[in-house]
């Protein structure tokens, strides 16, 4: 899989003679990149600086001022006062099943279209991929009405698909499976056909082909997609905004919206809340950078 960090590994493993000698141009390039990188991080660093100062101090001295003391007090306050743990759990309840189900369902579709020569394959794949490219607002009005109509007493708190984690899981799965089906079908197509053909001749069932032969070979692609999906679904703001009405049921990103309404007089506290919300995605990104980036480029490779 083509990952971006191959840049560094190939550079490091190249013979010393091929290393570009230190030239003024190189130094200039590093100065440019370092300056640009710092400018890029500036908004986040500014948010961090604001979040580490008490509101009283900044309102007296102004935001652009030397700190009397820096502390994580705002972070602790944001975390405890707004019950962020509760909203993190809400997000987990939505994201974990959504990621797993998306991968499971889209891999089955991919298996169907990539390993068998049915006439409908191309059309099916088109339907899935095109669906994923639509703006969410194209479908939200009827979806919202549909969710209000569907009664599922006992399964969700609201008794409807509306305002329930289940409803969010379903729309995430339906929407994201388009992209995953496309990527996985390309991946599966690159597997040698002898693998499955021999097993089929030996009388293995189709399910066995999928579950025991094809799926294990797709682990790298699945890992990349899982990383990508986790971050996307975690970051979702729109679906939850429209399809969840009770504050209690909100995932973390839309709960943050409420927090800012509640504490709009203390921007430092809101900054702390926003940064806390970003932490899980940053952790996933730093831990699985390779998977994430390769997942992103799986879909947008050389054509």
């Amino acid at each position, binding site marked *: 899989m083509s990952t971006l960090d191959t840049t560094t590994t190939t550079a490091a493993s190249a013979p010393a003679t091929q290393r570009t000698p230190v030239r003024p141009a190189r130094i200039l390039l590093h100065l440019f990149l370092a300056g640009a990188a710092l400018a890029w*991080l500036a908004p986040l660093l500014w948010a961090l600086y604001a979040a580490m100062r008490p509101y009283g101090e*900044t309102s007296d001295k102004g935001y652009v001022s030397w700190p009397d003391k820096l502390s994580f007090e705002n972070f602790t306050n944001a975390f405890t006062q707004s019950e962020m743990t509760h909203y993190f759990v809400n997000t987990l309840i939505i994201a974990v099943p959504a990621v797993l189900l998306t991968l499971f369902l889209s891999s089955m579709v991919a298996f169907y279209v990539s390993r068998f020569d049915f006439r409908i394959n191309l059309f099916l794949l088109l339907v899935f991929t095109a669906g994923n490219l639509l703006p969410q607002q194209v479908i939200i009005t009827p979806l919202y009405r549909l969710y209000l109509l569907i009664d599922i007493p006992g399964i969700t708190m609201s008794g409807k698909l509306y305002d329930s984690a289940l409803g969010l899981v379903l729309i995430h799965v339906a929407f994201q499976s388009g*992209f995953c089906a496309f990527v996985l079908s390309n991946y599966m197509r690159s597997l040698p056909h002898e693998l499955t*053909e021999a097993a*089929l001749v030996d009388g293995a069932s189709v399910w066995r082909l999928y579950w025991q032969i094809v799926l294990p070979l797709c682990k790298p692609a699945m890992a990349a997609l899982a990383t990508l999906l986790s971050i996307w679904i975690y970051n979702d703001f729109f679906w939850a905004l429209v399809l969840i009405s009770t504050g209690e049921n909100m995932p973390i990103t839309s709960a943050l919206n409420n927090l800012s309404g509640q504490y709009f007089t203390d921007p430092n506290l809101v900054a702390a809340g926003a940064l806390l919300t970003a932490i899980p995605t940053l952790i996933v990104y730093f831990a699985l950078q390779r998977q994430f980036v390769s997942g992103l480029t799986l879909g947008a490779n050389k*054509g």
Partner: protein
Amino acid sequence: MTTIPTTSPEAATPPPGSGPAKTTKAAKVPQGHRRLLTRRDRLTLGLMAGLPTILHVALVWVTALASIALAFTTWDGIGFDAITWVGFDNFKELFTNNPQFWPAVQHNIIWFVALILIPTPLGLLLAVQLDKQIRFSRVYQTAFFLPVVMSLAVIGFVWQLIYNPDTGLINSLIGANEPGHYIDWIGDPDLNLWAILIAASWRHAGYMMILYLAGLKGVDPSLREASALDGANEWQTFKNVIFPTLRPTNTVVLVVTIIEALRAFDLVFVFNKGAEGTELLSILVTNNIIGESSRIGYGSAIAVVLLVISLAVIIPYLIATFRKERQA
């Protein structure tokens, strides 16, 4: 965020250790082998493809079609018998009598043009520099890419700390935070769209950088060598050799950017809920649902405009992609 599928079969990476992959045609079970499938296998296959398809079609395509149907009606959302057919009335009112519609269309276009003119070339520039096998490449990449990983809602809150008239960084730095001297970055209809677009560009550039880096990785190194042997300088090599080979990436970048411009929503909603100066089609649709007025037919008409523009981009793009795939 959108990721655009363009991988053609040859570009798909074979899993490690599975040996060289055969061509596309061979990888499928040939027609004759269908006989090997038992009735049970066929049932399994039908379920495997059928269940996900039903879910996807029901929630995405049926609702898209329902949007089209509802666009020709008026409905307050209470009781099906209240749905009344009104023909093109919603569209007529939208095009002629809605003060927010044309500004929204205009802002969606500005959104696209701004993203394609500023962060896209910037992302390309960064990618070309980072592709030079330099030290600390990973560190730089991470800095530029960090905003892409974060939720747009979070990004909205972070940038409000910069734009806030009283307490924001910019006004504090230039001394415009005294009453009477305010520069209202968020409230001023002449400024707010641009302020939000800077935040959007901040995120978009990192995304474009990653796409271009992946594209540059696919450029045959011998092309560069040949160009260097011919005595071309760095700019000439890029302009005449590298950039033309990035054509597929450019197509992806173009489609991604159009779709991002049509989808733009979260940032604007967090900033000022699409108040004056920042109207977008997506915001108009959403306000019909979460706002006080529930005019479903009218909201659906706006959604249909969005759908038509989207499909005008999606369909030709997918046809081209899939045709290429067929030929492969």
